[in-house]
């Protein structure tokens, strides 16, 4: 009985590990999502890069930009670093420098779930985040990038 339990336990554990979502295993389009009241409908790749590099501080109309990013290990983080052309280490050093230069008040808050991102997007009129397309929830407004929606040919965020 004990042996059977151990075998079952090992099998379950291995199955669990195999099913854990990993940055390397995940792929697909990542959507740019904003607060549903944000009038923006399209961003160019360079505008997006400026947003997530902290170079653009406010939306048209003056609403302050609130950046929310996923914590290291998430697929959205991989796409973010690819967009900025930085390694994880360079990203951290970059934001330390941005705060030191007075270009940013703090580095973007790294969230551990898309649920938390959803909360943030709901509360902050100027919030912007990257979310895997399959995880896009109601109250998240998906923005076109270079005129394309996720899944369309030419969409750049993968």
């Amino acid at each position, binding site marked *: 009985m004990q042996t059977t339990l151990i075998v079952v336990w090992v099998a*379950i*554990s291995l199955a669990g*590990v195999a099913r854990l979502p990993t940055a390397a295993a995940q792929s697909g389009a990542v959507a740019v999502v904003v607060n549903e009241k944000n009038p923006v409908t399209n961003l160019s790749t360079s505008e997006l890069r400026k947003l997530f590099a902290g170079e653009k*501080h406010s939306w048209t109309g003056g609403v302050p930009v609130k950046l929310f990013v996923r914590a290291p290990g998430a697929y959205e983080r991989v796409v973010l670093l690819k967009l900025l*052309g930085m390694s994880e280490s360079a990203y*951290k050093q970059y934001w330390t420098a941005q705060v*030191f230069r*007075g270009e940013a008040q703090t580095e973007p808050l790294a969230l551990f779930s898309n649920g938390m991102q959803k909360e943030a997007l*709901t509360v902050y009129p100027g919030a912007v985040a990257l979310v895997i397309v399959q995880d896009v929830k109601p*109250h998240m407004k998906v923005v076109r990038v270079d005129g394309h929606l996720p899944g369309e040919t030419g969409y750049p965020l993968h």
Partner: protein
Amino acid sequence: MRYSRATTILLLVASLSFARRSYAQDAAPSDREMIQQLVQQVKALQEKVTVLESQQRASGPSNADTTPQPASTPIPQAADNNAQPASLLEELHELRGIQWRGFGEVDYKVLNQRTPELGTYGFVPGSHGNFYTGDFDLLLTARINDKASVLSEIAFGEGEAQTFSVDLERVLFNYDYNDHLRMSFGRYHTGIGYYNLAFHSGTWLQTTADRPLVMEFAHDGGVLPTQAVGLSFTGAIPSGRLGLNYVAEYGSSDTELHNLAGDATDDEENGNHINVGLFARPESIPGLQIGGSIYHDRISDRSHGSYARLGQTIVNGHIVYIRGGIEFLNEGFLIRHAYQQSSTVYNMPAFYSQISKQFHRVRPFFRYQYINANEGGFLEEFVLRHGPSFGVRYDFNDSVAFKTQLDHTLRKGQPDLNGLHLQLAFTF
């Protein structure tokens, strides 16, 4: 039953162990930072639970047996009604109070001469190699609201014989009206060129162990007015894909200029300066910045009579490319001094060029610098100096770096100067 419970606990612990190990492999960045972030979020969630519990208690016993709602349920309502839960979420996502960041360094520098020299920092006359701690910087930032914030930078600098002084490097009240107008009031680092605004006093941020000769702080013997008190405006200029930005400053800049040996200072008795700059970050080449600035002030030169006044104009041009681990910095200066009482004009050119490339944790770098002061001019003690520096920066992690740098400086009328500079730089 006991057997079943023990097995369940064993399964849970083992599964968590496996999951943790798997996650750690995926999350290559430092576990310490991840743990800190997790702790921060757990604290935030605890606060949220506490507030929710207190709200539930406050709502009275009639609601006590209400079916619990999922945590995410109230949030859309909060957004729609702008009710209390919205501010609760703000509390979770905002960093309140003063945020601290520290920058420190420990240096060892050896020269092939026994007299002090510009930028050798804690160099002790009579020795040709010594340890020093350079600047110990504390950066304090605080958010007042979405548009206003405060930034201050306090540096504890090392002087002669391990004496230390406190310097308020920067204290700024910032107000960001929008992307086109960002205002700062207080003491700032002047926007002459790129380096002064990019690296400030944080040695850890720099690839090299020291600042380029022309960019040395005035209080360390540098030639440029690197600090000022006044008003600073910056922002983006609508220019499409060209990505133009401006800098405009008006204030009182450094009034005391230390000499090369660090044993005397000249009071410049300067008036208010004006500095305007323009730079482009073209969208077509991410990482590229091209720009320039013009600075003007009126200062005094006591070495030319009791009250010789001169106009100081500093023209800068820079081309910088930072992307994909490549750092390529190029800046040129023309420092012009025109005496009011005569037609004498001195033009002092200077430049530096620095290139480095990150290979995993190692970043080799090379820098060439040049400065040429006119004999008889305001900054004549600098004479002609130029030469290469090369070395390696090694990042132990995201916060600690070790740098090794060799300098060779050719000086007009003096023997060449060679130096070895070792530096442990860190941020925390």
